[in-house]
């Protein structure tokens, strides 16, 4: 009886092939473990070629609204906003750096719908977000529409004529962007492609959201349980310390009660950004506040006359003045944030972006913060 021997690779060539297969497999394994697990997707309507319509396709309006000197437009294929989904893993901070560098400073907003926890990576990404002055949007439920971050559609003031009087034509000159925003708002691709089962910004997502220079979120569904880090109290404490450091550039005292509180969803603006905005838009703030007072006085006069139709109609003028000043204030704030972001990019990347150096710097900063925050 002849015993069948299994086929075995024979010869030097075969051995070499097997060795290279193993190397490829090992390499693949390595690359899997170190690969970015987050997915960065461009939000299509945020490509500058799409956003131009908000500015009535007028480059002058683009530069003037954003308070920028006339120059080259950004590459029109660049995305102003990214949607980040998936699960946090080592290497994600470098992937984000790559995106920021590729956008040459024109990436402004991150929509965060990511899961998982990796405290060191969270700290790195949070540092990157703050140092590049990015805005953050936390996805807390699966319906979220992309909204340009630099302008708001002010509907024309409603005619305050009496019910039986002819209404004057609606004013659409509260902001020069009115028509552009109106046209943009009817786009059909503004809803973010979110997975209803994986869309809540929680755990490791929270400090990244907190690092934004303007942080917003969509409302959580009614009755949804409040996110909590109770399952991982050590990381919860570290995250609070991390966000505290990012906002105030110092760590809380070890017995600071803030460390035992869960991360909140409040405060849209970090203190330093608020100071910068208040400083840069001081005249616009003064005028808007004064016009709100003026409206209040005009209203009290009308109320003393029992809000008779003629008195109510007379409120149209102070209303329009207040609306215009509000739109001007918002334009100034948008321009200030834009300038700050571009300046941040310039600071990080002057004279050119050295990705390796940046990566090491942010890794070092993250280790330093976490090291100090982790000490009792």
């Amino acid at each position, binding site marked *: 009886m002849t015993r069948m021997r299994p086929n075995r690779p024979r010869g030097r060539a075969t051995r070499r092939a097997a060795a290279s297969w193993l190397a490829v497999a090992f390499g693949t394994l390595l690359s899997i473990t170190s690969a970015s697990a987050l997915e960065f997707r461009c939000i299509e309507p945020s490509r500058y070629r799409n956003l131009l319509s908000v500015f009535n396709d007028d480059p002058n309006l683009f530069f003037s609204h954003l308070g920028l000197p006339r120059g080259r437009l950004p590459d029109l294929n660049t995305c102003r906003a990214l949607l980040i989904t998936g699960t946090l893993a080592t290497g994600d901070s470098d992937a984000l750096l790559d995106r920021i560098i590729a956008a040459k400073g024109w990436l402004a907003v991150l929509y965060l719908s990511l899961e998982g926890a990796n405290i060191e990576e969270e700290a790195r990404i949070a540092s990157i977000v703050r140092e590049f002055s990015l805005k953050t949007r936390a996805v807390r439920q699966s319906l979220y529409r992309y909204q340009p971050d630099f302008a708001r559609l002010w509907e024309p003031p*409603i005619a*305050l004529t*009496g*019910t039986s009087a002819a209404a004057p034509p609606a004013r659409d000159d509260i902001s020069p962007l009115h028509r552009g925003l109106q046209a943009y708002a009817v786009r059909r691709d503004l809803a973010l492609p979110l997975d209803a089962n994986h869309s809540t910004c929680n755990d490791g997502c929270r400090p990244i959201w907190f690092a934004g220079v303007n942080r917003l979120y969509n409302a959580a569904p009614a009755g949804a349980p409040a996110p909590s880090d109770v399952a991982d109290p050590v990381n919860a404490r570290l995250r609070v310390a991390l966000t505290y450091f990012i906002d105030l550039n110092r760590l809380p005292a070890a017995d600071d009660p803030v460390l035992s509180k869960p991360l909140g969803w409040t405060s849209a603006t970090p203190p330093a950004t608020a100071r910068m905005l208040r400083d840069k838009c001081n005249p616009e703030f003064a005028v808007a506040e004064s016009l*709100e007072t003026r409206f209040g006085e005009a209203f009290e006069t009308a109320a003393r006359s029992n809000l008779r139709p003629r008195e*109510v109609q007379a409120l149209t003028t102070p209303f329009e003045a207040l609306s215009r000043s*509000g739109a001007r204030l918002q334009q100034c704030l948008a321009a200030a944030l834009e300038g700050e972001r571009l300046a941040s990019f310039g600071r990080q990347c002057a004279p050119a972006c050295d990705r390796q150096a940046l990566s090491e710097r942010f890794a070092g900063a993250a280790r330093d913060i976490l090291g100090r925050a982790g000490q009792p």
Partner: protein
Amino acid sequence: MRRTWLTILSVIVAGCLLANRAAAIEVSCIEASKYRHLYQIFGGDPRKFAAYLQIEPDRLPDPELCRAALVSGPIEAPEAHDVDKLMNFIMANRGWLATLHLASGGGRVGTGYLLAFLARSFWLKTYTVSTSGNALFYMPDFFVPPLPAASATTGPTPAPAPESGLAQGWQAYLAVQKGLPRVPVAYRGCASACGLIHAAGIERFGVVRVHRTRYSGQGTLIDLSKSMSATNEGLMRSEELQVAYYRQMDTGPDFISTYQSTPPETTTPVNVSRYPRYVADYLNARCGADAGQLQRLERQLYATIANLNSPLFGLWIKADRLRKAARTVREHRSKAEQCVAAAHERERLSAFDKACAGGCTRQKLQAMVETKIRDLAKGAR
């Protein structure tokens, strides 16, 4: 000339007869509008309800009657009995039906006129249906919900608004409403021939989508079997009639110009003025305030607060004066709306008494609305 208008009318009726689709409007009671539920706002006391609307306490609605109806689905030809459905509903509710909530993409213009004149004859209010998701969202027509308690303010205390003592009752009513089954709404708007009914409301709320009239062909948008001259002449006459109708209902110049300038293959949204002008003048004089204007002022105040306080830009101004103004407007408006509601209540009950004196019959009501259409056609000359 008279013969011409009679021809138009016969064309409208013939147009109605052409339809043979099975679908038709549905007229159904909005459960949350049953008087037994609405009494909850007044602590379950019908006399307080009567006092609020200044009606005789000995003439109160049966608790099972409906104050509001949902009118949904396509408006169809006479054999679909759309008009009968509304007539029966009005008669069954014995004058206590006050509002129609419209959820229809339109249909037969001829039936639309009949339904519309029926609505106006019985002094009904019309709303484009409001929804929350795809379910009907109902708000009583006579009551402005109270605002949450305000923080302490300085200055003289204003006279209490009529709804201020009803905050608890309002919460009780909301709790009842929450327990009622959801009413799904298939078409969330009011377009085309539905606009005729909307325009007939004595108080009108919500947006209507309008377009010019057309002859529709078999499976085509426009009937190309007719000659161009016949199409032009026929539709010009039809438009004159419709414009005369909108004038009679006093929908406002914007409404008419939007209707005339919108091609038939599309629709344009338009706001109908809340009241006919002379009704507005009357109510302003009677109530010492313009409730519609105060409503717009309140809406504008909240819109401005929302705009100014947008967190999109990181910082915003305080809008305390605007908030205070909004509260003051709400107080004034509550009183004005109560006065307006009471005036409408009396007028509607007397309209029912007048139309149904000596008993309401289908034939009598049919004759009444047909007379109104004939008068309209004569007037359009």
